[in-house]
């Protein structure tokens, strides 16, 4: 009955592996063609289960289509193309190959018909995203990659237990809406949330992404967290807990981004913040909210990649990653400046950009459900987004004082990628119908009402005003912590700082204690001349142990 459908993820895996064995001259062509061909096959996937296989004695659903799944797969493929375009002349072939394998994992998760398939591609993503982090090539990238790998390994294990538990309890691992009523579903929930960078395990993201290469960061920004968002939409829509987790992420991202000095780390915290909006939308769970979360993921991938591209271009050209050492680059990097600013406007949800048409859906869904507190928090957070990503990033990198650096715009392929994504940001903002037609539920939402536009502009203006009013002070001290006279903004970083110190001390103490106990345990058991379990003359001890075991077994057997 089923016609053979080529799973799009397999196609991309094949392309990525082909890069490794192809002649060097053909590699860029292959890397650029693979995402586009994959994109074509993504659009060939019809609704419903398209392709099954047998694994571990179960019928698994390799490919299941739906509007939502195609939407995510489309943006992942687009992203892979943009990323390769940005990187193909600068990256080593294995970085491109790893990045495409990473992307294929994301596409595979998008079309996964059951949790088993989802898990397989989930692990593929974890594996190759680690390789992408390692391609940063520095000592700190190596260390960050190891930490990143361990977090994702633990996350994968938790997910695996959840899936196996579900399989045994219910006999099915179909992807469907789950409720948090058993240990297994909780494990699935936690496993997915770890990839979404939800609290308390958000730190891996801002730890690892800034250590990647200027090109690698672009890929990393897109896939892991957004596949988690998709999985949450499919598995836990309308789970009220997600609203609060989302809100926490939103403010966590804002606060840490405001305190941060490394430009790509600012953007990394901003990913947490933006994913927070999506998670919050999923928690609200109405059709409008889920549409909003999906649309926001789509828009976010593109503008966040654009921001990472502009930051990557600056890093590539100057080798400098700290905001305090950058500034005044608009003179010699006009294209990067313009593209970076477009990205910044989009993330701030400026009208006529992609961020505006997507984020306002989430805000409106909170209003429609009469969740006053949530709505207020989301609106306040929108101002915060403008502060840290919309103004802080471009201002300190491209404008501000003159740092004396005079780098040129980056090579043509980087510029082309940035321009392509800028056009997408504006295009989606001007023609919202393009994105809305791809959404899972029918859309009767109109973004450009006078009310929406005026509210958003007012918000942005006041936030902008606040930033520039305080600018003289920042210029004088040259610190990066932005102290606003707005009470909670001044108090909150302080509270966070105090808490952070206290928590840091507590964590250090715990770490020390664990290390001490661990070291003693390891000392006891490891192969050392005087360690008990590994003496160099093991025969006598073995004989004694045999006697002991025999005595135990026989005694227990007879008694």
């Amino acid at each position, binding site marked *: 009955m089923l016609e053979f459908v080529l799973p799009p993820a397999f196609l991309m895996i094949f392309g990525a592996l082909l890069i490794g064995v192809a002649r060097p001259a053909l590699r860029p062509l292959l890397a650029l063609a693979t995402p586009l061909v994959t994109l074509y096959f993504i659009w060939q996937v019809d609704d419903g289960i398209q392709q099954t296989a047998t*694994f*571990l*004695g179960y019928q698994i659903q390799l490919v299941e289509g739906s509007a939502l799944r195609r939407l995510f797969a489309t943006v992942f493929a687009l992203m892979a193309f943009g990323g390769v375009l940005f990187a193909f002349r600068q990256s080593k072939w294995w970085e491109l190959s790893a990045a495409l394998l990473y992307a294929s994992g994301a596409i595979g998760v998008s079309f996964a018909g059951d949790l088993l398939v989802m*898990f*397989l591609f989930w*692990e*593929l993503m974890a*594996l190759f995203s680690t390789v992408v982090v*390692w391609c940063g090539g520095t000592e700190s990238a*190596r260390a960050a990659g*190891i930490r990143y*790998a*361990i977090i994702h*390994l*633990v996350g994968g*294990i938790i997910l*695996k*237990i959840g899936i*196996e*538990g579900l*399989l*045994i309890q219910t006999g099915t691992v179909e992807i469907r809406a789950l409720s948090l009523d058993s240990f297994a579903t909780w494990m699935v929930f936690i496993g997915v949330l770890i990839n979404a960078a939800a609290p308390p395990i958000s730190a891996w993201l801002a730890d690892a992404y800034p250590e990647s290469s200027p090109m690698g960061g672009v890929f990393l920004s897109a896939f892991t967290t957004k596949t988690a968002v998709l999985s949450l939409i499919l598995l836990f829509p309308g789970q009220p807990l997600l609203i609060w987790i989302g809100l926490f992420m939103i403010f966590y991202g804002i606060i840490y981004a405001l305190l941060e000095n490394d430009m790509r780390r600012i953007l990394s915290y901003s990913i947490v913040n933006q994913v927070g909006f999506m998670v919050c939308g999923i928690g609200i769970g109405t059709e409008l909210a889920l549409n909003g979360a999906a649309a926001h993921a789509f828009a976010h991938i593109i503008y966040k990649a654009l921001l990472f591209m502009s930051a990557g271009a600056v890093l590539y050209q100057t080798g400098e990653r700290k905001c305090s050492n950058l500034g005044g680059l608009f003179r010699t990097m006009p294209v990067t400046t313009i593209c970076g600013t477009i990205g910044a406007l989009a993330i701030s949800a400026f009208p006529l950009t992609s961020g505006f048409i997507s984020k306002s859906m989430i805000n409106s869904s909170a209003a429609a459900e009469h969740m006053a507190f949530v709505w207020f928090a989301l609106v306040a957070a929108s101002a915060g987004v403008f502060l840290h990503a919309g103004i802080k990033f471009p201002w300190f990198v491209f404008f501000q004082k003159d740092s004396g650096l005079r780098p040129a715009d980056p090579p043509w392929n980087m510029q082309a990628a940035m321009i392509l994504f800028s056009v997408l940001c504006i295009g989606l903002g001007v023609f919202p119908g393009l994105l809305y037609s791809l959404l899972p539920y029918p859309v009767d939402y109109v973004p450009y009402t006078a009310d929406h536009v005026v509210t958003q502009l007012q918000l942005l203006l006041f936030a902008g005003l606040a930033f520039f009013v305080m600018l003289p002070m920042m210029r004088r001290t040259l610190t990066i912590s932005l102290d606003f006279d707005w009470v909670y903004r001044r108090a909150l970083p302080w509270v966070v700082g105090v808490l952070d110190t206290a928590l840091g001390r507590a964590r250090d103490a715990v770490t020390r204690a664990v290390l001490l106990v661990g070291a003693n*345990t*390891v000392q006891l*058991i*490891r*192969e050392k001349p005087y360690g008990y*379990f*590994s003496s160099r003359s*093991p*025969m006598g*001890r*073995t*004989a004694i*142990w*045999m006697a002991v*075991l*025999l005595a*135990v*077994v*026989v005694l*227990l*057997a*007879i008694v």
Partner: protein
Amino acid sequence: MTILEWMPFSVLVPLIAAPLCALLPGRVMPWSLAMLAVIASAAISALVLPAAVDEPLRYAFGNWPPPFGIEYYVDAVNAFLALLISAMAVVILPWARKSVNQEVPERQGPFYALFLLAMSGLMGITLTGDAFNVFVFLEISSLSTYALIAHGQRRAALLASFRYLIMGTLGATFYLIGIGLLYIATGTLNMADLAERVPEVSDTRAVRAAFGFIVVGIGLKLALFPLHRWLPGAYANAPSAVTVFIAATATKVAVYILLRLVFTVFGVEFALDMPYREVFFTLGIIGILFASISAIDQPTAKRMLAYSSVAQIGYIALAISLVSVEGLAAGLVHIFNHALMKGALFMAVGAVIYRLGTNRVEDFAGLAKSMPWTMLAFVLAGLSLIGVPLTAGFISKWALIQAAIAQDNWVAVAVVLVGSLLAVIYIGRIAEAAYLRPAPENRAPIREVGPWMMVPLWLLIAANFWFGIDTSLTLDTATRGAEVLMGVGP
């Protein structure tokens, strides 16, 4: 001749070829004869497996009817294992040629003769249906293994071999005492016969003591913590080819004979009455944690992998302590999968030793540049050991975790997962050195190894992925075998 009549020859061919091999001069002839013998043995095993899965094959030696004569008894469990042993020997021998030329330059005739003896001993333990005959083959394989280990280049090999000799003999003696007690209590040595008579006398102290002696004696042979001490030294000092072979097969055969005696001879109910579950569960868990932590800071790759083997034995002990069809199937499938991954890992390390002359962990620095295919193989086999999806190791851990969850045994689940994390660390140490650290300046340029070593290595890597995706041979046969052992199903 029928398959039934061919079946004993999978043991006899290598056994008869061994003395011939010892007499052959030079390097090419002994190796060729050994190769022919193991290919014949593997071909017979491959033909026997499908026949034995349907119905047990019973072959009486010299036409003496079973209770009096020695009988070979082959069903899904041991046909599967016999195929594993002989197939691994077929894959390992071509690999061994180059390595043995370097590490055992002279008198290769006796070396290959010992190899054949060790192999036929393992095959014999697997196929025989007679408890005393098990002891005979156990001694054949053990004695030849001691001699093989002593062929190691360093002097420590002699000491390691001697220690293994002493400890292995202790284990074998315990087993013999146990069998003796059973014989006194029942008057038979045939396993099928024993299985019928043991229940009548199962509450006598002699039978219970026999259980204790047999479990502890075989526990040493399978390197169950804390009786594992012979293993790291033996694996680390033996010639690389020997390490690959015994790591892939020897401890697995011990697990088989344990399962056969505990479940077929003593029976499930008797085992549940005995402290079988508690002993294997506790020692399995401690073994996993202990050996994995020990593996992390071993100075050489071979020692590290040896400790990892002790940990894998822990997984198998944990699986078979669950006493359910799923648990036994997980244990059996891990026997098979672990042979694939450990074989590949030791081959990759052996290739490094062949080129570099050392396997200290820090000497792996920068090797990914000069030996890219070997190191890639190491990493892929390492992923299988860790249990990454689509590898054979994933199937093992999946089956084990399912068996544990089905019994709500969360301690087992947690330990398996911690063990995987520890495996990441010790495999990661080597991978990190090979890929992320620069090669030392003063190292002489080294080349990748040739096809004799590369092809068997990548065959095993391919098998690791094949059996990670298509589980119809492994998991289905293991489940069938587990049903036979548990005495359920058709």
